[in-house]
């Protein structure tokens, strides 16, 4: 177990900078998830921690020891790859014990460790088989077993669940979290799936275009996003962004609707353009609210998602064009509803849970 300290790390290929100065502190035993859209540099950063990618600038330290020039084999880390990367010519037991055999560990010790890991992951009956004889989920478990057997300082996961089907993904999510609670090994986990990030992490690092947008606990990011990118990325369905301006004691949308604000933000200057951010579950029915036409109703059983088109005083009433689609809002209700497409509902956001963003910088006001 160990801490990992990433200081001002950069990565460039030629003149193209992929990672533009990133600093993260990972405590001993912490489960940290790097999340972001594809191409944001999260996998590259993980590979730099692993030593599979050279570091162009800054330092990576494991347990206060700078490892920039330490080869992967001497970093005492274990990595789980997206496509499992199991050695096809070795049995499951051989796959799991490969690292120990390289270190000339005693046979009895290897057997004990493999058995323990197999026990944790329920791989016992499969130890004599070859990877090609296993299903996707089993292979993924073997890849994790290979990491556990090592008893490394740090676990690295590179999108380990992306190749699994939806149901298995949820199950493995729980298993990985359980495994971490049991072993308490420092873990860095890369995913593009914000649900994985929200459900598993102690700490989430949201990355975008090679920089860190925000670091924080899952619910902290959800409740207090630092900017529009984080606000839009964390949470599903995504937060609604309504452009408009601050004026008087409230917010006026570009469509002409009035939305309420709490005292703390309405002190901002009058007429200033802003973006009103409200999560889909933070709308409620209100007689004095904005009028919107129901476009689509999507019941999931536990909740209902609705896509609405605000009518507004200035909004185009006839022929919904592309412009109007951008103005569509998502509303998530716990209750079931009899609303039909074409009906008009009146909804209002909960001002205490709404956010205001600067439309130019994207930062929260």
């Amino acid at each position, binding site marked *: 177990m160990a801490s990992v300290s990433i200081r001002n790390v950069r990565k460039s290929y030629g003149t193209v900078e992929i990672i533009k100065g990133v600093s993260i502190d990972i405590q001993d035993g912490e489960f940290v998830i790097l999340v972001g859209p594809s191409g944001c540099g999260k996998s590259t950063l993980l590979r730099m921690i*692993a*030593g*599979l990618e050279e570091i162009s600038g800054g330092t990576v330290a494991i347990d206060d020891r700078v490892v920039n020039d330490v*080869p*992967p*084999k*001497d*970093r005492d*880390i*274990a*990595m789980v*790859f997206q*496509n*499992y*990367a*199991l*050695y*096809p*010519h070795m049995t499951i037991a051989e796959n799991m014990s*490969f*690292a120990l055999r*390289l*270190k000339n560990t005693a046979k009895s010790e290897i057997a004990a460790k493999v058995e323990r890991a197999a026990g944790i992951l329920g791989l016992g009956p499969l130890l004599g088989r*070859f*990877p*090609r*004889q*296993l299903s*996707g989920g089993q*292979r993924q478990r073997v890849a994790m077993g*290979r990491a556990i057997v*090592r008893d490394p300082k740090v676990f*690295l996961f590179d999108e380990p669940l992306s*190749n699994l089907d939806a149901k298995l993904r949820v199950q493995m999510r729980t298993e990985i979290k359980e495994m971490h609670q049991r072993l308490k090994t420092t873990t860095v986990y890369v995913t593009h799936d914000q649900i994985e990030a929200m459900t598993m992490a102690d700490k989430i690092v949201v990355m975008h275009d090679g920089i860190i947008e925000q670091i924080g606990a899952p619910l902290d990011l959800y409740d207090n996003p630092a900017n529009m990118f984080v606000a839009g990325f964390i949470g599903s369905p995504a937060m609604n962004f309504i452009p408009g301006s601050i004026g008087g004691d409230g917010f006026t949308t570009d469509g002409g609707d009035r939305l309420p604000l709490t005292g703390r933000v309405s002190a901002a200057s009058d007429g200033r353009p802003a973006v009103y951010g409200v999560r889909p579950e933070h709308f409620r029915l209100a007689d004095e609210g904005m009028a919107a036409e129901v476009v689509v109703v999507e019941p999931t059983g536990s909740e209902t998602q609705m896509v609405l088109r605000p009518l507004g005083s200035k909004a185009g009433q006839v022929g919904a064009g592309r412009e109007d689609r951008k103005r569509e809002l998502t509303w998530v209700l716990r209750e079931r509803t009899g609303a039909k497409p074409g009906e008009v509902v009146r909804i209002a956001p909960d001002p205490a849970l709404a956010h205001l963003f600067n439309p130019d910088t994207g930062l929260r006001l």
Partner: protein
Amino acid sequence: MSRPLRKLLDKAGMAVCVLLLVSPALLFFIWMLSLSLKFEIDNGAYPPILIPDRFAWKNYTTIFEGNSFLLYFWNSLIVTGAATLFALVVGVPAGYGIARMRAHKSAVVIMIARMTPGLSFLIPLFLLFQWLGLLGTLWPQIIIHLVVTVPIVIWIMIGYFETTPMELEEAAMVDGATRWQIFAKVALPIAKPGIVVAFILSVIFSWNNFVFGIVLASRETRTLPVAVYNMLSFEQVSWGPLAAAALVVTLPVLILTVAAQRQIVAGLTAGAVKGG
């Protein structure tokens, strides 16, 4: 047209096409077999006879009698065996290095060595071997067969190593393996089907090579193709023994290919990566 009939016609069409494509090689073999089992009188007969009334097994026994055939067989075995072994020892790591370092230029250089006509460097090499006192041994032929075998092995192995997933080696790297251990314990076992293919092609090309042998071999160091050629040159063309000798020369390569076919087809990498 009914469905079963259509299916049947499709199959028949396919069979005809396959037969047409394979027939040159197949008929050639059948005729060779026929020649080797006929007496000279039948071999020259018109219209040609495919299956004779009497089989001339004598053709096969004669090649093993007067011609030191076993010595030439042994020579061929040593030359091909040594040239292929050296080629694998050198070519497999070389192919790995070129594939991993993406050194495609050096691969092209090796290809050029292969494309140069053998005769252009045979004479200088002959003089060199003479000066080294190696003529009369099998060494000149072993060395010069490397010109054939090494490029084949390297080129096949480049292709093979390039398709093995990089993640496997990265996983080994993280697991604590050194460069050499990664090669020996991960890359090499996975490349086994590739090595088998390289081995077989190397053996075939070396075994059948004629030009190098005819220039460099003396009476005692002849390889099989040269020995077969020499059967032609005495007093008359005796088709029967010639065809029998040719078949015997081809047989080891044929058996090898058939035996190792399963190895070639077996996708050992299945299961390494998703869908792999």
